[in-house]
């Protein structure tokens, strides 16, 4: 067999790969931001000590963590139209799925982040007369975020890798872009290899950054 890379040019990349890459990126960014937001809420619920909050939040997180992501993607794609009452595209469904799925994982990260803050910080906030919300927003969560930045970023890299799984519902992400290009040019081997190389360099580069950050951000205790 011989490898032929001559069909790689700007035109081909713009036509097939770029929109897929942008969707993967969009999914990663929205999934991370939404996941951290709802994950923090879930973590606060799990740590609230009130059964009406801890039981549903715990059940949700454990359920999401024990089902394969591909199945979660399929579930949302199946259920979303009847929940929203109208048809929904694969891309929109994927975005909702990733926020819902990743919030379970970010919840566990934020929970250990919040638990890493000494109790004295909470008491200090309370002694200052802060309400629960003020205490969390101004004292606990900023420190928890800071301590957890490397772990949150590592999870983001995992999330970026997981975006390739939207293949299951036919959403057009970067992997799909390479695949379609491979089919149209009759060169699947070169395009799968190129996809692997690009995923590798993005994820490897990001994980190097996380390592550097890990050394810079000292954990406050």
């Amino acid at each position, binding site marked *: 067999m011989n490898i032929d890379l001559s069909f790689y040019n700007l035109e081909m990349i713009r036509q097939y790969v770029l929109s897929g890459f942008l969707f993967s990126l969009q999914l990663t960014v929205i999934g991370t931001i939404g996941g951290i937001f709802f994950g923090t809420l879930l973590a606060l619920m799990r740590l609230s000590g009130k059964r009406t909050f801890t039981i549903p939040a715990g059940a949700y997180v454990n359920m999401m963590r024990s089902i*394969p992501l*591909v199945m979660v993607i*399929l*579930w949302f794609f199946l259920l979303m139209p009847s929940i929203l009452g109208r048809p929904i595209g694969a891309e929109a469904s994927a975005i909702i799925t990733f926020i819902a799925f990743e919030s379970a994982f970010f919840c566990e990260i934020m929970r250990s982040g919040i638990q890493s803050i000494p109790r004295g910080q909470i008491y200090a906030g309370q002694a200052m007369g802060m309400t629960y919300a003020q205490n969390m927003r101004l004292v606990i969560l900023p420190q928890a975020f800071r301590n957890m930045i490397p772990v949150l970023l590592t999870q983001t890299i995992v999330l970026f890798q997981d975006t390739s*799984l939207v293949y299951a519902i036919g959403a057009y992400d970067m992997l799909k872009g390479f695949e379609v290009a491979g089919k149209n040019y009759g060169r699947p*081997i070169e395009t799968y290899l190129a*996809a*692997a190389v690009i*995923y590798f360099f993005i*994820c490897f580069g990001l994980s190097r950054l996380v390592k550097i950050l890990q050394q810079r951000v000292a954990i406050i205790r």
Partner: protein
Amino acid sequence: MSWNWEVFCKSTLDENFSPVCFGTGGETTYLDWIMSAWGWTLSVSALGLLIAMVLGILMGALRTLPPDNFVTRLLATISNVWVELFRNIPVLVQVFLWYHVVPALIPVLKGLPSFILVSLALGFFTSSRIAEQVRAGIGALPRGQRFAAMAMGLTTFQSYRYVILPMALRIVIPPLTSESMNIIKNSSVAFAVSVAELTLFAMQAQEETSRGIEIYLGVTALYVVSALTVNRIMALIESKTRVPGFIVSASSGGH
């Protein structure tokens, strides 16, 4: 909305329903199909886990070799590259590489069924994570263990075989448990290369029967049952192999 669990008793070919739900006389029902799909999921996961354990323990051990000479440094570098390579490519892309690219580059692998190729992909992917855990487990051992082995006159291989690995592997059983559960979840990517496992069953049966919710619930339940079973088996292994009074937990640290 109404439930229709009878869909599992329906024949996959016509509109007949089997009274015992399992197909009789050469007919297959959806229940037969989901059970065989479960078998494929478990087989792919088991074979993948076997490959991942062997390679992961090997690579994890190589990464901790003392940098005494050229050979050990080379081996440590190889295992570093290994881990970075297989950890930073999405598992689905790795499945495609094994299915489309590797047989074209290595003609010997051409005749292999996709079941084997997917197991290899899952095994190599998971081996990089297991290598990390094993390395951390070896790093968590007191250094005296290694020195004691050296003082006994054991070679490097012997000290790993008889002293370091037996202790380190016990330490890493909890993370290995979650990797074993992960590989069952990750085996769902095998749908992409048409291995007839649970996720592919879910997609095809949903389309054929339009009873997606019942089908998906069945598949999801089987995934959860599989993961819980693995969890219990690993807990059993952990309690059977415990060294009395030595290890409480890798994370709880010393006194």
